[in-house]
């Protein structure tokens, strides 16, 4: 299997736009050949419109011919369109905005392979490495000289900081096909609010992964749907299990003390589980994402962090709440019974 070339890039549109706007944003002054090639490869974008959630393939400038990779990506883009039809508008938006993180999340559920490493993840690691080297420079200089001075120290520090600067800027203002794409222009025009919006096929798939793209995308759409509904689903399940327990008790022994007590216990269990579970979820997400990691209120990190820590906190709260709620229900029943 061949490895995808470096310049195979695509993005998932996170808002509706026209094809021409995007074309001029990416290429600034595209030649006729560039435009014709872009349109041919992106033939799934009908009526000159790009809709939220659609895949847009960024082709090289002035190409000589359509490569096999481009043909395969075009086929994948059509598969994406078919999957996209299954989503509601809200879900499409969620998937498009949080494409990278949902990809990561889906990979954790064991359904995806080779998707976790994105271009920006690699860059981030590079920045971390340079920052470590800066820290090392500070430490060794201080150990040797007892201060943070000297021409050599400043020169080395300048060089390392320059590397950080170049790498960070490169994340947005990267070179595409030998041409600089200005960060602000591409950011505002394409709506690049999150960092990982332009994806490099090679970094995502490694070799021979294009065949798996459509099935991977299907997992992504399912994960996106789950994200929006997971909280409501948990609440519905809680209420549902209580109703089922009451129904079971009352169909076994209708009009009995057992049936009446179960009603109290299960109602208490559901209220305790939902009320305290909700608090547990919030505390979990708040404590981990805000207090420990200090994440911003937008971006993909918060979504991912919230899902993990919020669900964990919610589970703990819900377990404790259901124990307390059930006991409360049982005691309330006993008190009422004694009063009668």
């Amino acid at each position, binding site marked *: 299997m061949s490895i995808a070339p470096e310049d195979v890039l695509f993005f998932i549109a996170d808002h509706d736009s026209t094809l021409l706007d995007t074309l001029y944003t990416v290429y600034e002054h595209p030649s006729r050949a560039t435009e014709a090639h872009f349109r041919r490869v992106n033939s799934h974008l009908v009526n000159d419109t790009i809709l939220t959630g659609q895949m847009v393939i960024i082709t090289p400038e002035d190409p000589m011919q359509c490569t096999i990779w481009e043909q395969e990506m075009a086929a994948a883009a059509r598969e994406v369109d078919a999957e996209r039809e299954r989503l509601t508008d809200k879900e499409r938006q969620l998937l498009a905005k949080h494409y990278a993180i949902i990809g990561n999340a889906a990979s954790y559920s064991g359904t995806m392979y080779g998707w976790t490493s994105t271009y920006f993840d690699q860059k981030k690691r590079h920045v971390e490495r340079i920052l470590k080297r800066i820290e090392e420079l500070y430490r060794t200089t201080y150990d040797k000289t007892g201060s943070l001075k000297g021409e050599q120290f400043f020169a080395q520090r300048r060089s390392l900081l320059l590397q950080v600067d170049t790498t960070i800027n490169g994340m947005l203002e990267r070179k595409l096909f030998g041409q600089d794409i200005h960060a602000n222009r591409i950011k505002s025009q394409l709506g690049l609010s999150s960092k990982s919006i332009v994806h490099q096929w090679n970094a995502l798939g490694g070799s021979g992964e294009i065949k798996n793209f459509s099935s991977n995308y299907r997992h992504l759409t399912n994960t996106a749907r789950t994200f929006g509904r*997971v909280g409501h689903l948990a609440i519905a399940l809680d209420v549902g299990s209580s109703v089922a327990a009451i129904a079971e008790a009352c169909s076994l022994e209708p009009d009995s003390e057992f049936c009446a007590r179960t009603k109290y216990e299960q109602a208490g269990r559901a209220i*305790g589980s*939902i*009320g305290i579970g*909700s608090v547990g979820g919030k505390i979990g997400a708040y404590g981990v994402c805000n207090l420990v990691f200090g994440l911003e*209120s937008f971006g993909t990190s918060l979504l991912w962090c919230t899902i993990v820590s919020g669900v964990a906190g919610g589970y703990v709260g819900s377990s404790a709440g259901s124990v307390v709620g059930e006991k*409360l229900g049982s005691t309330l029943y006993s008190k009422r019974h004694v009063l009668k």
Partner: protein
Amino acid sequence: MSDYFYREAVFYFSLITVALGGLEFLHTIYFQVRYQKKVDVLINGDNYIDGGWIFNASRMMMYAHYCLFPKRAERAGVEKAIHQIPVAIKWHLIVHWVAVILVCFLAAIAYLCVRSIGGF
């Protein structure tokens, strides 16, 4: 304190805790329906996305934190947006934040008490 009074105290304490948890839950629904989108747009601009119950609830706590600790809001670059939030909404956020922290502590204590006596 006799065992009977201790059990009664734990019972009423737990009852109040669960009731507060329920009220807090209802308040979250009210806020999410009435104000969530407005605040999200104010703070995140076109980054607004309805990510479901857990995500929205997590953001509520974060916004309240920004209201209570302006330095954190400044670090996140949202201090201007926080100033623009109407006072009534700010109060909702702060009350919510206090209620969540309070109910969390009360629930932990209630759970331990209930476990220690094995019921009421």
